[in-house]
């Protein structure tokens, strides 16, 4: 890596070398039986160069030929991608607890035994079809750049997901559990699956209309995606964000506070620096319903004349390899501030409504505009404060800039959600639900 940096420095103004290596294992159970065990040993190097205000980008998995990698980056300069920013000099970083060495010794056998235990428990308490999977990941990122930055971080993560599927379908109740080292999945998570599944086994066909709708951690991706689309510096720069000029204004109900805290190392995935080497710090995006800040990577911070907030991550919409992906503004540690109501209390406060456990089609529709229109998979139907069954064919639709103004209450516990987010259940009022009846 150092040799590559030196070689590149001779022919460019600014250079960044990003490298990553990781090992991972995963175990999956289908129909409560062991199905697959897979392992991965991956690595790669990604090079960004800036010369005369233009960006060059290249990458490789096996750094066998430094000259070729550098040449690819130099060739891409000719395209003229503008890069009016500097790579940061980052030195003092907080010590975060991201690495649990016990994960290095975790065997596939232990993960198989834990999944089997979870499957047995779920099977003994429900009549559904059981899926479970566990995975472990040990990653090592290093970033060096021509400003003198040389930072690295090692992190471990372990997760287990259990799902009980309603017979004759593929929708069900899922909860996942995340930690830095191997831990027994807490009974609370598993009991929640069992309870929700058993209480919703009856299929009901309620009339549609406007009603209370509760988004659960697994369906929250619908709202999260649109909130982040609206608050990304990229959308602000491209003028596709409907809230680009609303900083300081109230955009949501005052019960809604959206933060990002990459330094919170209670959960796996904490990061002292982003994928561009900018030091991480907590960011409040929406506070008590008021839009406080957008999030920036180096590129869009420079275009919008703002300070980078440490949100340049090598992520693509559908995952992708960090090595082959250029940094973009992204929030990877989002949380929504929990409220004071337990899930049971939230359900009690619903005269009539739908709990969206999982959303179908969260990625379709006019995301920049904040519109959503999702199928429920499943939706649990509530009448007079009690869950009476599940709905199969129903669609929930709205616009987040309307929906998030009608918050009844926010749940008191945080759950892991997609994209590294931790969110509570949120109950909304006056949301449109279409059904066949």
């Amino acid at each position, binding site marked *: 890596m150092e040799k590559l940096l030196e070689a590149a420095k001779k022919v460019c103004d600014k250079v960044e070398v990003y490298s990553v290596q990781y090992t991972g294992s995963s175990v999956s159970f289908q129909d409560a039986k062991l199905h697959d065990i897979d392992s*991965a*040993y991956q690595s790669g190097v990604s090079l960004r160069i800036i010369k005369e205000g233009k960006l060059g980008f290249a990458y490789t998995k096996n750094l066998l030929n430094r000259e070729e990698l550098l040449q690819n980056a130099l060739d891409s300069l000719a395209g003229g991608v503008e890069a009016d920013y500097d790579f940061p000099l980052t030195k003092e970083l907080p010590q975060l607890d991201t690495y649990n060495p016990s994960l290095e010794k975790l065997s596939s056998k232990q993960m*198989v035994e834990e999944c089997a235990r979870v499957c047995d428990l779920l099977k003994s308490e429900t009549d559904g079809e059981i899926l479970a999977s566990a995975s472990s990941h040990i990653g090592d990122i290093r970033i060096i750049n021509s400003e003198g930055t040389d930072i690295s971080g090692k992190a471990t993560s372990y997760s287990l997901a259990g799902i009980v599927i309603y017979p004759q379908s593929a929708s069900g109740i899922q909860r996942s559990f995340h930690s830095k080292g191997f831990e027994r999945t807490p009974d609370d998570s598993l009991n929640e699956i069992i309870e929700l599944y058993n209480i919703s086994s009856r299929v009901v066909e309620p009339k549609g209309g406007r009603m209370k709708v509760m988004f659960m951690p697994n369906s929250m991706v619908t709202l999260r995606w649109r909130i982040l689309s609206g608050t990304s510096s990229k959308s602000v720069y491209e003028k*596709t964000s409907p809230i680009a000029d609303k900083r300081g204004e109230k955009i949501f109900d005052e019960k809604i506070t959206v933060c990002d805290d990459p330094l919170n190392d209670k959960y796996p995935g904490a990061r002292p620096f982003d994928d561009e080497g900018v030091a991480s710090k907590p960011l409040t995006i929406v506070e008590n319903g008021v839009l406080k800040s957008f999030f920036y990577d180096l590129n869009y911070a420079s275009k919008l004349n703002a300070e980078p907030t440490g949100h340049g991550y090598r992520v693509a919409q559908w995952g992708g390899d960090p090595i082959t992906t250029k940094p973009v503004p992204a929030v990877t540690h989002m949380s929504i501030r929990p409220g004071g109501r337990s899930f049971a209390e939230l359900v009690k406060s619903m005269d009539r409504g739908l709990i969206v456990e999982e959303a179908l089609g969260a990625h*379709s529709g006019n995301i920049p505009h904040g519109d959503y229109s999702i199928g429920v998979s499943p939706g649990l139907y509530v009448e007079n404060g009690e869950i009476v069954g599940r709905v199969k064919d129903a669609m929930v639709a709205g616009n987040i800039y309307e929906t998030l103004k009608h918050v009844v209450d926010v749940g008191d516990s945080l759950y892991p959600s997609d994209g590294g987010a931790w969110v509570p259940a949120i109950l909304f009022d006056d949301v449109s639900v*279409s059904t066949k009846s």
Partner: protein
Amino acid sequence: MFDRLREVLGKLDVDYADIRYEIKKATVISFDGKELTQIGSNSTDGYVLRALKDGGFSSVVFTKESDAEKAAFAAAENARLIAQNIEKPVSLTKAEVVKDTSLPPLKEDPREVSVAEKLELIRKYNDIPLGYEKIATTSISYQEVIREKYFTSTEGTEIREDLVTTRLSGEIISKDGDLTQNVRVKAGGSEGFSTIRNQEKNFEERTKIALDLLKAKPVEGGTYTCVLNPEMAGIFAHEAFGHFSEGDIIEALPAMREKMKMGEKLGSDVLNIVDDATLSDQLGFYKYDDEGVRVHPTQLMRNGVLTGRLHSRRTAAEFGEPLSGHCVAEDYRYAPIIRMGTIFIKPGTRSFDELLSMLGEGLYILDAKGGQTAGENFTFGAQYGYLVKDGKLGEMVRDINISGNLYKTLVDIVAVGDDFVLGKVGGCGKGQINIRSCHGGPHILVNNLVVGGV
């Protein structure tokens, strides 16, 4: 190359093993609005090794050749661990031993077109929408992916196959006051750079739709009878039905497996669904899958009766059904899984006008915008649509998302058009992305679709 791969396999004490080495060359040119955001060509590589031992089957992926031994050991160890923990040992259906090289015939090899020329062409297309005042921005990307694959197994199969994919895709975003609308634009295929040429008209047409959508009304939620255009029909064939023809998905869902037995009559008499990745000059084309099995055209449904399924060697053995050659990986980072190749509804006899008059009153919906399924339930977006009254197209509507139930919809497809269009750009995400996922069909008439308004 094959000598080195055979040497790795030779170190294994297992019942079966295969290894795939792959070099992936990717070229990307991306625009966000006027701005070029990415350009360049890069090459990456890696290995995927799979081992079967005593009925346990496991895979490992690795980047460095120096990790080969460690990886082989891990695969064998995990296979043994699986064997100890499963009741029913995994077996693989016998496949023909093949030695072959398959290099696709190309109409203009993209490797012979300079990056500068590609950039100029993409910029020209991107400038078309940007020339209109109410187009806020675009997001247009050209991607060229060339997979050079070397596959060998302990059974003696040795296959070198190249897959060349060109794709031009993106969004045109229009804006009027607070209202933004987006429309997708697509071109590409498996047969070379010619698929990217002459797209000016395509960009003009898509731009017009994006502008017209600013004046369209949101559709009202409710239950509608709809005519679906070929792309929407294709997404139905793929998302709602196709995934449940995949052996690995249905294997995990015993109740659905029970329902989707060969010979079951699940659809209306007019419904015929086929997966045929052997069709040349189509996005989904390939010769061998990533298990070294030659792909066959597979009729999945004939006159509403279930007649076939897509398989890997493992699921073919599990179901006792013939091999189809549909076990495909995204690239060197993944072990293969079952994927559709080119799935479509076979054309019928009705003209478009006949379908509209049969519809009478309802919606004509066009062009998919994301879709997802969970078992029998599916949800897809349509990019735009038209109200239909008395069999005539009326005003344009937007914000269309439909949701339905697989089994009910299979019966509710009551008429099939006589036209036929296959998709140019794929992107099925089933844990891995399949950029060659191709689907299509004719116009179809479907009763009882739930449409969610906003």
